[in-house]
């Protein structure tokens, strides 16, 4: 389970997130939606304990798989070597590496140096390292960014299966309403550092209308 309770974080005098409260249950995919600079990445970093909150608290039960928005690995390593390294650092067996290579669709890139991967390929390697050890929760920041259409479809299926087959709690941030409509059970909307809506996911036209109304109202407020 992923839980944020009254999270507040300031940078200098500016409040990046304020009183953010929501939860992601096991077996659930929750979309974290908001305009640029709304506080999505900051909230995710608070959940992962990469930042300390100035108020409230965050908790993730069990191990967590994290995919940052701009995933980077070590250029000098091959894909398989990198995943072996990450498996050792996470304390999971390197036996899991072939499974995650397959699941993330990068088995054919196993020997290739990270330096020679495209942006989309790097993103999938990032997804593979997040899958190591079958974590109980996932925090995925823009997981389909830079992927081609087929990879987008494959990644969406994979993320959906993490919740339905493995029972993991998945929080993913995205700019794409279609992504939320395709994958998520619920959506949490953040604007200017505050949660302005939390609802079950409906069809895309309805979601678009709701999101535009929320962002529009917030901008006018």
């Amino acid at each position, binding site marked *: 389970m992923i839980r944020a309770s009254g999270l507040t974080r300031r940078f200098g005098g500016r409040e990046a997130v304020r009183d953010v409260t929501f939860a992601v249950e096991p077996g659930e995919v929750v979309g974290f939606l908001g305009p640029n600079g709304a506080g999505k990445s900051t909230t995710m*970093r608070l959940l*992962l*304990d*990469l*930042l*300390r909150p100035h108020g409230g608290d965050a908790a993730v039960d069990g*191990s*967590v798989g*994290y995919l*940052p928005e*701009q*995933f*980077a*690995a*070590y*250029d*000098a*390593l091959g894909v398989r*070597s990198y995943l072996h*390294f*990450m498996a*050792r*650092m*996470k*304390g999971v067996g390197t036996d899991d590496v072939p499974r995650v290579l397959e699941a993330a669709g990068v088995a054919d890139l196993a020997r290739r140096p990270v330096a020679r991967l495209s942006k989309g390929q790097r993103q999938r390697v*990032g997804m593979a*390292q997040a899958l190591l050890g079958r974590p109980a929760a996932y*925090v995925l920041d823009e997981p389909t960014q830079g992927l081609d259409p087929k990879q987008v479809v494959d990644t969406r299926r994979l993320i959906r299966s993490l919740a339905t087959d493995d029972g993991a709690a998945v929080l993913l941030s995205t700019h794409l309403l279609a992504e939320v409509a395709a994958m998520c059970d619920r959506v949490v909307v953040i604007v200017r550092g505050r949660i302005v809506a939390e609802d079950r996911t409906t069809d895309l036209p309805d979601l678009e209308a709701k999101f535009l109304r929320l962002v529009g109202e917030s901008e006018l407020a």
Partner: protein
Amino acid sequence: MTRAVVRKDLTVLWASPIPYVVGALFHLALGLLYVDQLEVRRQAVVQPLFPLAGFLLLVMAPLLTMRSFAEEARTGTLDVLQAARVRAAPMVLGKWLAAWMTGLAVFAPALLFVLLLSWWGEPDAGPVIAGFAGLALFTATLTGLGVLASSLSSSQPVAAIVALFLSLLFWFADVADQAPQAGSLLLRFSLRERLRSFASGVVDTSDVAWFVLLVVATLALAAQAVEGRRLR
């Protein structure tokens, strides 16, 4: 976990041009300065090699350590590790070991100077062994200071400058030994003084303990700095 970090950091470091360039410049400068010393002294002695190598390592070591944490912080790979709840201690230890091993590999060819010297004279084995042991401990300390500096910044140049400054501070601490109050205390801090006793063939346990203490202190501070990134 520490072993995984050592292996990864050695691979990353030796895939870059840094150790090769540092090694080449180090031995070029050391060769010129050492031959100059031999000509001045008109004696085939090994002793001048160690302070010269020590000073050059002082300048070169920050280049070997500057990327250890700074680069991981800049690219975000450190975030991925910390999100996976990897503690700072094994990372710091692994990075220091990798940097130290690289430092040892960089200055190891200096043994060739001793071999060449044996053509013209018979250098005493004692000062040679003690001198190289001293340089190994000295490199351990410099890489400790470098890893600490790298843990404080996400900029490699800043990490290198901070490491150089700290190293110079410890190297020249004995300059103030004439000060009535702090002089004797500062003399104890001087890395140059510690290295000098090794070069004369004396292995004093207090010198060894001082180097070890500095390494432990710098690594403990680096671990605190890495954990403390979250507080920023």
